[in-house]
């Protein structure tokens, strides 16, 4: 029976027989959704005298907030760093495919590129919500070109840059625009980086440290200026050394300003990082862990098969490799923590009342069974009933 329509006459969906991730625990609770948002059923009951219009039986599955991937370079043959004729189409294809892995929002990532690539690609895509067509785009992640030569990794050497005297104008000239940019990875030891970090932060763009030979002190300075993320911890940075832990030392640094958290991305495929190292990081700073795919164009075998760099394998990998890591922690590393990193955790990465109803339904082995965006089912694994 619908509500008394005092607030809304939109239909109300009640997910029953599920365990939801709330307050860091899996709880046996129903989940209520209306108009794309998580609904408070107690308020509905007492204020609106309402009840559900339809019930979805989840048959005991887990409901977690939809996963958020903040580092994904492409997939299924698409490379985001190419200025193709159909940039939008490429992003859309990947956005659609990653629904199968429970990813409901992502940051298309561009690796170090010459300026004309950024000038062609960036204006093509705006921040937009997800839906039936695919996961939502929260903005671009620009990884480079302001990174260290010694730690370029797979980035093309000839396109690396450093900041000239006025770092910001140099940066804007390179990228062309900062509209629809959500994150920039840079090396903080580059001269003139401090003002860049500060300005980007002020503009609401997340600054991430990566592909860098910074020592801990330089990294801490950058954090003070606003940097809040580490791009693929351990990879493309100086190794942890007990007399200078470098960027890795941020996980336990006492110089991080009060009330701020330094998050760190991990590619938990067991290959980029030894599982033991992953565990050390997790134990040192469990609330900062953010799982990323760092997937490349080659990702994407037919649905149901998992390869390197796919989110689900990451989760399973984390679960398998990090002994003692609870399911809830693994799920939060893929949803809550990236949302907190991007400053959107009032709406995404949570199942709190008023939040966006981006959901992923999982079985106990953390296989994705269904994906929802704004309360609408956008993908379901075939040959399974209901959820």
């Amino acid at each position, binding site marked *: 029976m619908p509500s008394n329509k005092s607030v809304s006459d939109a239909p109300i969906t009640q997910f029953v027989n599920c365990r939801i991730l709330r307050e860091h625990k899996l709880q046996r609770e129903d989940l209520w959704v209306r108009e794309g948002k998580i609904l*408070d059923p*107690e308020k509905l009951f007492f204020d609106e*005298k309402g009840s559900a219009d339809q019930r979805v039986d989840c048959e005991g599955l887990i409901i977690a907030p939809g996963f958020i991937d903040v580092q994904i370079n492409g997939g299924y043959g698409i490379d985001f760093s190419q200025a193709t004729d159909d940039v939008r189409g490429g992003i859309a294809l990947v956005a659609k495919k990653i629904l199968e892995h429970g990813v409901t929002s992502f940051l298309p990532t561009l690796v170090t590129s010459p300026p004309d690539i950024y000038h062609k690609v960036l204006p093509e895509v705006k921040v937009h919500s997800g839906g039936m067509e695919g996961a939502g785009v929260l903005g671009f992640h620009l990884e480079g070109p302001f990174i260290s030569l010694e730690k370029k990794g797979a980035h093309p050497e000839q396109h690396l840059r450093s900041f000239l005297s006025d770092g910001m104008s140099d940066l804007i000239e390179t990228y062309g625009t900062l509209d629809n940019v959500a994150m920039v990875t840079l090396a903080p030891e580059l001269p003139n980086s401090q003002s860049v970090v500060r300005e980007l932060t002020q503009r609401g763009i997340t600054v991430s440290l990566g592909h860098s030979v910074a020592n801990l002190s330089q990294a801490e300075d950058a954090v003070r200026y606003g940097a809040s993320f580490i791009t693929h911890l351990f990879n493309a940075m100086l190794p942890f050394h007990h007399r200078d832990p470098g960027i890795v030392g941020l996980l336990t640094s006492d110089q991080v300003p009060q009330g701020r958290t330094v998050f760190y991305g991990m590619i938990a495929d067991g290959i980029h990082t030894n599982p033991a190292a992953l565990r050390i990081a997790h134990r040192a700073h469990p609330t900062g862990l953010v799982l990323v795919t760092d997937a490349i164009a080659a990702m994407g075998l037919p649905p149901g098969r998992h390869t390197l760099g796919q989110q689900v394998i990451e989760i399973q990998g984390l679960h398998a490799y990090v002994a003692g890591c609870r399911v809830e922690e693994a799920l939060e590393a893929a949803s809550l923590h990236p949302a907190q990193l991007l400053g959107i955790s009032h709406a995404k990465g949570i199942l709190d009342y008023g939040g966006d109803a981006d959901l992923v339904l999982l079985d106990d082995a953390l296989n994705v069974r269904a994906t929802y965006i704004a309360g609408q089912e956008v993908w379901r694994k075939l040959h399974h009933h209901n959820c």
Partner: protein
Amino acid sequence: MKLIILNDYDQVGEWAAKYIRNKILRFNPGPARFFILGLPTGGTPLGCYKKLIEFYRNGEISFKYVKTFNMDEYVGIPRNHPESYHSFMWNNFFKHIDIQSENTHILDGNAANLIEECDSFEQKIKAAGGIDLFVGGIGPDGHIAFNEPGSSLMSRTRVKTLAQDTILANARFFDGDMSKVPTMALTVGVATVMDAREVMILITGAHKAFALYKAIEDGVNHMWTVSAFQQHPQTVFVCDEDATLELRVKTVKYFKGMMHVHNKLVEPLPPK
């Protein structure tokens, strides 16, 4: 009075739930004929609510044609405060069953005019045709609802200031901080409950034993307001062994001897 003496808390909850279930089923409510149930909050009835939810899940009972009136609510705490009686009823009962919201009634401790709210509650009970079965608990000071010692046995729904004992007892739900406990509540009166066609009081634990003694073996007295039900024609007291510790052996033996008769009231009803 019927005094039902069971071994422990769980058995009390189960017996009481079965009694309520059977009452509702025998009444056979429908769209034109609701069963009106008065309900308590607190630790004592939790076991009973759990069992009723179980019966609902088994398909033994529906609350579609049941109307409920709760006994009381704190004044001045937000309705969605985790310790409000609205929250209690939602989390421990309503959200698990098929009751319709418009059929539930809980006093609004944030109403603009508290006296009007209380009067209106009495009117609603009247409009519903009166209460068929009022379920309640008993405080260690013998109070029913928030009818603290000294409350008139003729009292109706009204605003009450809570006794120091009650505030102390409730502090554990408010981070142990007495200053956070509400000092006033809206409560049905003793006479409001007396008006019900039947009353069932649940009492468990040794700390309630003296109150039970005062309620049923001593005189009717406004210092122990539950004693008023000695003058109600249809009262059932359901208690555990510990709650009988202050009663006369004779009383306990008499009522234990009646259990084979009383247990018939909770046997599963024959299918229609």
